[in-house]
């Protein structure tokens, strides 16, 4: 919120420096985001009066003779502007002057003539867009009463500051000059000067006017006041300047007053041209379903009974608190006005704004919350200004429609001890009383108890914790003395075994040369298309974001591979020759759509490898390292996966559960990414996606030691010639089935050579024969081996090699 220092000073004496004031604001919970000195960078610019002018023949220049008061008479300054005239008072930058941006003025030759300074436009003084008259293309013409020779900073009111202060959502009462002045008064310990709310009403009445309220639930307070004999003129400079400092354009005195009251008191006001009100009536009611209204912006809108409208006797003339109608606007012809000050329920204003897709300053103010106190104060201040500026006469026809909300101030009873218990320190009760009173609260202390009267503009204060906050922000957070959780000192903390194991799995993968990555949990349905995920696949049952910021992040991911693939592609494009990555993160599986209960969020583990040294088996080795580290038994079977190489893709099985899939990414998918030729050659990408949550359930709950066997075992190797498409995994499984003695079967070697015959390979398995009840003899081991060879030969058409 923009705050002009001089405006603030109207309501409280400020005797501290600007940095001190900022610090105080900060300490009280109001962060000053930006401070701007209006006269920043301006020096040696004074009011000058043009005493004579001569056109510089053959140029566009005027030679002005200037009276600069005490700074010199008959000073020659050339200007190219064409709006200067003899007698005009203008800002004159003298030789040695500095303008915003560090621009220094020197005497200089313009063609053949010397110029001893520069006449300034508004923009050159850094006041473009807010000082009255600065929009003129040319030199800023000053008012006739501007004293010649005076410092321009003073004359233009630039010796002032604008603060941009952020106001937290719980303090709508501080969204105006008066509210902040109240805070300043409290923290500086100065009295608040109340705004002048006095005005006189004439005897004139207009009994035709009807103002009432048909929707107290949405408009608990609705004030109307009739003013007449309206005059139209420009607002005085001080008002224009203050409006401009808050980025509001001056229009016409009567309209400016309503805007001024909004900024000063925080109350949105509305002025209706009585001549346009059918039946001289104005009142709020719920709109009827499908009722239409044309708003100020010229748009026709369809309403529902959830919208509040302001109506005349015939039809809606405005969206309450949001935007007026096209016809009731104040024009130069307006002579009679009904002024409105109202409290509209903020929730309803918000909902209407959202459903109708409109947003205005007034609506923003109502959404933050307007209190009943400011409704009254706003109307009074508005009438006071109407009278002071002589804009109109104030009739005694006035209306106050109230839903019956108490105009009494709320009382709460709080013990000082309770406040101190929240803070953890002891603030003397006398200090509490002092602080609360300075903030406008009423306090009656009896012993430890405080009977507190809450000001009507503090709708956010309702219990002891709110009072504790008021006290500590004024008393100062530096009084808090840190202590180390005195209670709750002893609790059982630390990571659960499952959390520790998850950490260990991450560490294991790092040790295997993988880098952990962290990616967005959102991507696009197109990312699934790119992987040829079938329309009927479970992954297509994803959760969409109803209001995504971009289509690229429009669904919550049902699988990790697309995220991983993106990272790999980016690394390939960045010319990294190879990379190994993993991510352990949840995927989101809805129980139904649209989401109406908590979705499942199982953790998945995604592994991605690429580069010249990687192949299917290097991927499998990474996956197997988990089994190896945690004593699990992984088996693999061929699997069809839409995005994987059909000959190099597998499902991982553990304890009968399908844990996930792994394999090489299809070439056409790699090709679909725009990777420059030359980087693409080795772009073989290997991916695994495992259900980590399911895998974690397979981990043994505890380590159990098995006594070492004192029985001897025997190792025998067998070599078999089989067809190349025979799966070694199947052979190993068969060995274990054939012989109960086969405790361990390891692959010793796979050998392919043309001399073995086309389509043949030699597989050497190393088998350890052992049993718990006796030592295996050589004869036994040989017998078992022979049986294995015989059965495998039958099963796989294998030929034993010697």
């Amino acid at each position, binding site marked *: 919120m923009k705050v002009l220092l001089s405006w603030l000073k109207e309501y409280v004496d400020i005797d501290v420096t600007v940095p001190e004031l900022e610090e105080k604001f900060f300490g009280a919970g109001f962060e000053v985001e930006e401070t701007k000195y209006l006269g920043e960078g301006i020096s040696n610019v004074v009011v000058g009066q043009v005493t004579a002018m001569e056109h510089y023949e053959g140029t566009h220049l005027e030679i002005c003779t200037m009276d600069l008061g005490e700074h010199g008479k008959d000073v020659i300054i050339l200007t190219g502007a064409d709006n200067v005239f003899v007698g005009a008072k203008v800002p004159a930058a003298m030789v040695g002057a500095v303008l915003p941006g560090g621009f220094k003025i020197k005497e200089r030759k313009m063609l053949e003539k010397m110029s001893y300074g520069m006449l300034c436009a508004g923009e050159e003084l850094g006041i473009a867009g807010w000082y009255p008259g600065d929009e003129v293309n040319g030199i800023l013409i000053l008012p006739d009463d501007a004293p010649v020779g005076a410092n321009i900073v003073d004359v233009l009111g630039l010796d002032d500051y604008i603060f941009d202060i952020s106001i937290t959502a719980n303090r709508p009462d501080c969204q105006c000059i008066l509210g902040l002045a109240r805070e300043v008064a409290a923290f500086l310990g100065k009295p608040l000067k109340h705004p002048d709310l006095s005005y006189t009403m004439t005897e004139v009445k207009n009994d035709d006017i009807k103002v009432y309220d048909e929707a107290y639930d949405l408009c608990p307070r609705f004030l109307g006041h009739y003013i007449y004999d309206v005059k139209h003129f420009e607002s005085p400079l001080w008002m224009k300047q203050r409006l401009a400092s808050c980025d509001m354009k001056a229009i016409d005195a009567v309209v400016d007053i309503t805007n001024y009251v909004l900024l000063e008191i925080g109350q949105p006001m509305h002025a209706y041209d009585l001549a346009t009100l059918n039946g001289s009536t104005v009142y709020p009611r719920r709109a009827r379903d499908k009722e239409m209204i044309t708003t100020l912006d010229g748009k026709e809108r369809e309403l529902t009974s959830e919208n509040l409208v302001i109506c005349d006797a015939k039809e809606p003339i405005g969206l309450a608190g949001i935007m007026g109608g096209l016809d009731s606007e104040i024009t130069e012809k307006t002579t009679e006005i009904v002024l409105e000050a109202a409290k509209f329920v903020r929730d309803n204003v918000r909902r209407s704004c959202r459903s109708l897709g409109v947003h205005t300053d007034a609506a923003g103010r109502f*959404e933050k919350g307007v209190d009943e106190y400011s409704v009254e104060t706003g109307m009074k201040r508005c009438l006071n200004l109407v009278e002071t500026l002589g804009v109109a006469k104030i009739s005694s026809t006035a209306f106050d429609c109230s839903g019956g909300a108490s105009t009494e101030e709320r009382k709460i009873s709080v013990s000082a001890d309770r406040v101190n218990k929240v803070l953890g320190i002891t603030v003397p009760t006398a200090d509490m009383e002092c602080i609360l009173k300075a903030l406008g609260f009423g306090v009656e202390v009896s012993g430890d108890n405080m009977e507190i009267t809450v000001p009507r503009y503090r709708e956010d204060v309702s219990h002891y*914790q709110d009072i504790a*906050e008021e006290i500590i*922000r004024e008393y100062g957070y530096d009084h808090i003395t840190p202590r180390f*959780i005195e209670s709750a000192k002893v609790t059982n*903390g630390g990571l659960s075994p499952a959390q520790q194991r998850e950490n260990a799995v991450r560490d294991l993968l790092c040790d295997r040369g993988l880098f952990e*990555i962290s990616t967005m949990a959102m991507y696009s349905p197109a990312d699934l298309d790119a992987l040829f995920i079938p329309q009927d696949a479970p992954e297509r049952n994803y959760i969409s974001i109803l209001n995504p910021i971009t289509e690229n992040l429009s669904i919550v991911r049902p699988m990790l591979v697309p995220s991983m693939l993106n*990272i790999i592609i980016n690394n390939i494009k960045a010319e990294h020759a190879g990379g190994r*990555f993993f991510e352990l993160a949840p995927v989101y599986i809805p129980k139904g759509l649209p989401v109406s209960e908590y*979705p499942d969020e199982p953790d998945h583990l995604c592994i991605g490898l690429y580069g010249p040294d990687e192949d299917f088996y290097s991927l499998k080795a990474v996956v197997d390292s988990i089994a190896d580290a945690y004593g699990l038994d992984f088996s693999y079977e061929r699997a069809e996966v839409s995005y994987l190489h059909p000959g190099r893709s597998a499902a991982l099985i553990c304890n009968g559960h399908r844990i996930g899939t792994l394999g090489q990414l299809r070439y056409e998918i790699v090709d679909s990414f725009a990777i420059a030729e030359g980087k693409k050659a080795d772009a073989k990408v290997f991916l695994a996606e495992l259900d980590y949550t399911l895998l974690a359930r397979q981990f043994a709950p505890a380590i159990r030691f098995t006594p070492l066997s004192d029985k001897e075992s025997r190792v025998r190797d067998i070599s078999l010639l089989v067809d190349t498409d025979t799966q070694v995994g199947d052979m190993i499984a068969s060995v274990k089935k054939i012989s109960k003695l086969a405790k361990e079967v390891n692959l010793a070697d796979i050998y392919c050579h043309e001399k073995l015959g086309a389509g043949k390979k030699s597989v050497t398995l190393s088998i350890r024969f052992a049993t718990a009840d006796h030592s295996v003899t050589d004869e036994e081991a040989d017998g078992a081996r022979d049986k294995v060879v015989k059965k495998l030969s039958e099963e796989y058409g294998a030929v034993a090699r010697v």
Partner: protein
Amino acid sequence: MRDFNELKKQFETQLELSDTSEKLGEFWQAFLGKNGAISGLMKEMKDLSKEEKKEFGRIANEVRTWAQEKYAKRQEAIQRFELELRYKKEAVDVTVPSKDVQVGNLHPITLIRREMINVFAGMGFEVLRTPEIEDEDHNFTLLNVLKDHPARDMQDTFWVSDDYVLRTHTTGGDIHVMKNKKPPIKALNPGRTFRSDSDATHSPMFSQMDILVVDKGINLCDLQGMLDEFVKQIFNKDVKTRLRPSYFPFTEPSVEVDVSCVNCGGKGCSLCKNTGWIEILGGGILNKVVLENCGIDPDEYSALAAGIGVERIAMLKYGIKNMGQLFENDIDFLKQFRA
């Protein structure tokens, strides 16, 4: 009598010539082997008289002992020499880069998260996981962020249905914790959070860690004391905290917590915009309304809650300027986080 001196001289000459293990082996065969010159001496004794035999035998034994000692010394010297030769020959260029050795590392967010968890685990906090897709009640309403309250605008929310959102903070998880546990509670609630916001310091997805303590007599001094300890362990022992008033609907009083600038120590620099302080988290004393919503009696218990942005801490600690880099996962970026 046999000229033993001649034999010894021959032995010494030959031994001198045997300068490799191989030659030494041959030498051994020639002199000390079964049929060697020295071993064979005993055969020469058969024609001698008893007296002579005795004398010959004594000398032959002396010669053999002498020869064996000489041989052993020679053998040891040659072995030592050959070993040295082998070492010389096998010398490698130790500066050649090693092959096939690459160890990865954790992502910086995981690193920082672990560090933060370690600090709080040491204080007796347990670590809990709560849903990332959250219902409106837990994300907002039960936290005293009522429907159509302007505070809902403070966080730009991704909606996935009429009642469910991608959680905008981990604070909603505190509600789950408080509903399911009895005080005293010390819980950490880390995880992904989402807001529709994207620039150099905001990402639509980021990580938060909520800190929750519920017990009798918890107050603002506990909050600052706990956070003091946290920042000292995460940054360094000279870092201080500062509380200043703020507003969250679920805490009252609400505070922003600043730390003295970790870059300049509070003197003022570009990182802290010359203020000497950096905002790192928000928190406060849980609003009694929130405790009541979880079935906890505010007359008996009070609670503190604070939410820390994990990326923010990572960026401060590691000096990362652009939050987006954390999610780009370029390998050159990832490689830098080794500790």
